């Protein structure tokens, strides 16, 4: 399982990257994609959609199951990774890179400070697998 140090994480298995302009890029973690198996369908939020923290804003479906993706913090969706609709398997192959799901502008720039760091996320995954 890969857990890049420079990213923030949620308890619901999203990763968050704080870009230099303050926007956030969001995807699902390597652990989450491995649990779900081969992705076959990704439903992304529309640009401009207002999202609330910990509320569902996207759906990923694998051969095995459907799962909601939650907004890590409150804010507004600025763009979504439309390439995933034709190649959802990108989420499996490159969850932290080309498999990103959407970008958003947070309502409060300090909200990301409340998210988990890599170490805390790894501890969470370890506790869930017991």
């Amino acid at each position, binding site marked *: 399982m890969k857990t890049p140090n420079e990213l923030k994480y949620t308890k619901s298995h999203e990763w968050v990257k704080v870009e230099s302009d303050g926007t956030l890029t969001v995807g699902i973690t390597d652990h989450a994609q491995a649990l779900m198996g081969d992705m*076959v369908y990704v*439903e992304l939020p529309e640009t401009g959609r207002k999202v609330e923290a910990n509320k569902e804003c996207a759906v990923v479906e694998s051969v095995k199951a459907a799962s909601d993706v939650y907004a890590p913090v409150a804010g507004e969706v600025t763009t979504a990774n439309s390439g995933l609709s034709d190649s959802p398997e990108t989420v*499996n192959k490159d969850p932290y890179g080309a498999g990103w799901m959407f970008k958003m502008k947070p309502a409060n720039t300090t909200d990301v400070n409340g998210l988990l760091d890599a170490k805390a996320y790894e501890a969470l995954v370890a506790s869930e697998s017991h």
Partner: protein
Amino acid sequence: MGHRTPLYEAHVQAGAKIVDFGGWDMPLHYGSQIEEHHKVRRDCGMFDVSHMVVSDLKGAAARDFLKLLLANNVDKLKTRGRALYSCMLNSKGGVIDDLIVYYMDDTWFRIVSNAGTHDKDLAWMNAAAKEFGGVTLTERADLAMIAVQGPNAKEKVYAALGENLRDAAGHLKPFHAATIGELMVATTGYTGEDGFEIILPAKAAAFTWQMLAEAGVPPIGLGARDTLRLEAGMNLYGSDMDETTTPLESGLAWTVALEPEERKFIGREALEKQLAVGVPRSLVGLVLEGRGVLRNHQKLKCNGLGDGEITSGSFSPTLETSVALARVPAGVKLGDKVEVDMRGKPMTARVVKYPFVRNGKSCI
């Protein structure tokens, strides 16, 4: 820890994701379920199905006993080595299990049934055998089973296990078996592709698996086995039928032999009653219109005829869309549109004839 087949170590070494399946630690996939699915459709692959239950029924009365026990008629098996798919019913016509029975010789039939129903199947069969008399049932836990499936499966089996298999089994039509030494090689399967199911001594399983791997046969997990069988329109026990449904409501009327009338198999009376009043539900194929994935237990609205439910739903890697088997009220016809409740969102699915895929080609 669950039960483990003789191939468990081979699965772990091949990087399998191991899951519990009916009390067995089995490989779900070895990396990518979809890639494994395509390998079987386009080339070939091998499945460890040693968790399935092999039982040998022996005795002078074996054939007569099976004519009572099974809804299909073993008298269709006229020559040695022929195989028959059948349901085993309770007295209410509910399906206890589905199985394949092989005619080995006049006093010996081999039964292959599901792992998840092991205990109740053996209890039922043993009780029935005791009452009937003249037969003995022996579970063959000393045997393993490997399915090699796909358009190139047979050639790879000959390359791996010897040309004598071509001589012994190469000419077999579907649903036949040949015995070569300690191997039983059958032209049965659960994928809708050409290939063999090989029953062999458990102690020879790891070596045979390795020989097949060296001949270029990749291992395939139970995940792909499920999408392959769904595309092939084959029922899964526990999902598409169980003790609360009859075969007539499960797309399995073709496996019920009501002729000859005098054969009083267990469940016959209940099925005749159901036919007399009309079978209330049927199993149909569905193709999703639009994006998303049909899932087991999603509810359907069927044009004022009543509600239905998806019994097996998944993404179809071959068709690149979602397909399902669903139980719907009688009166739903091919071409009808039904409404599926997909996570609170109404979506449309079209009723189609299944199988969805046979021998690598779309049938819809």
